[in-house]
């Protein structure tokens, strides 16, 4: 198993970040064109804690290296299952995801959290545990895990840039909506 982790701060309040997070993969995000579908499967609120639990199916069209595509059977469409928890009291978003495709060869478990680091900033943490399961040589397993971690590193930077754009657009659109409502009053 190999672990990849990263952390960063966004200059937006937790309320803004946790709202924009629901549209992280919208057309505003030109850095996430590999995400071709985001479908909500279920959504419930725990009556005793108020925690919002959401299940989503994320579909990607990943441009993987040719040797990976060959190894994994030639398909580039992959699905990810994500369960997220929003705790409105402690102000914490936790998102846990797991790959559904190629899960017999590679297990990728990712946990992302968003928590306020001040009233105007939000801390993002990301941890991915990658395990190659394919039987056979340890050498190959290591190579698969290393390639996956590399990919995670690259994507983490791109992911942050894309989300910044979504945050900026969300702030602008919400601001415009507020102005419009004020004018109506």
């Amino acid at each position, binding site marked *: 198993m190999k672990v990849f982790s990263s952390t960063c701060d966004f200059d937006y309040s937790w*309320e803004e970040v*946790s*709202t924009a997070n*629901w*549209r992280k*993969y*919208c*057309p505003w995000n030109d850095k996430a064109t590999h*995400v*071709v*579908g*985001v*479908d*909500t*499967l*279920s*959504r419930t*609120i*725990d009556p*005793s*804690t*108020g*925690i*919002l*639990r959401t*299940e989503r*199916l994320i*579909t990607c069209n990943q441009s993987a290296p040719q040797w990976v595509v060959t190894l994994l059977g030639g398909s580039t469409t992959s*699905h990810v*299952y994500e*369960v997220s*928890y*929003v*705790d*409105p*009291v*402690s102000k*914490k978003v*936790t998102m*846990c995801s*797991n790959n*559904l*495709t190629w*899960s017999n060869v590679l297990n990728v478990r990712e946990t992302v959290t968003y928590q306020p680091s001040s009233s105007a900033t939000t801390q993002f943490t990301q941890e991915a545990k990658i395990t190659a399961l394919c039987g056979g040589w340890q050498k190959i397993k290591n190579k698969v895990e290393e390639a996956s971690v590399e990919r995670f590193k690259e994507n983490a930077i791109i992911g942050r840039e894309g989300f910044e754009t979504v945050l900026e657009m969300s702030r602008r659109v*919400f601001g415009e909506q507020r102005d419009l409502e004020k004018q109506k009053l």
Partner: protein
Amino acid sequence: MAASIAPECNEIKERYDTCFLKWYSEKYLRGNTTSNECEELFTKYKKCLNKVLKERGIDTMLEDARKSSSETDSEFLRKS
């Protein structure tokens, strides 16, 4: 908002997502965690989506994945 994997569900998905986002930012984050005004739209969207998930065999993959979500549930559905 992002698209659905099923193009035929896009329209109802868009309506549901818009409803949810409004509810989330205006009610849920302000402490009103009980209302479920988007439920009707969600039911329609799920009906459309579930048909496609079944056709493509994704529903069985999800069943397996759900088994492991009880772990994260017990960790993150607690009062903190």
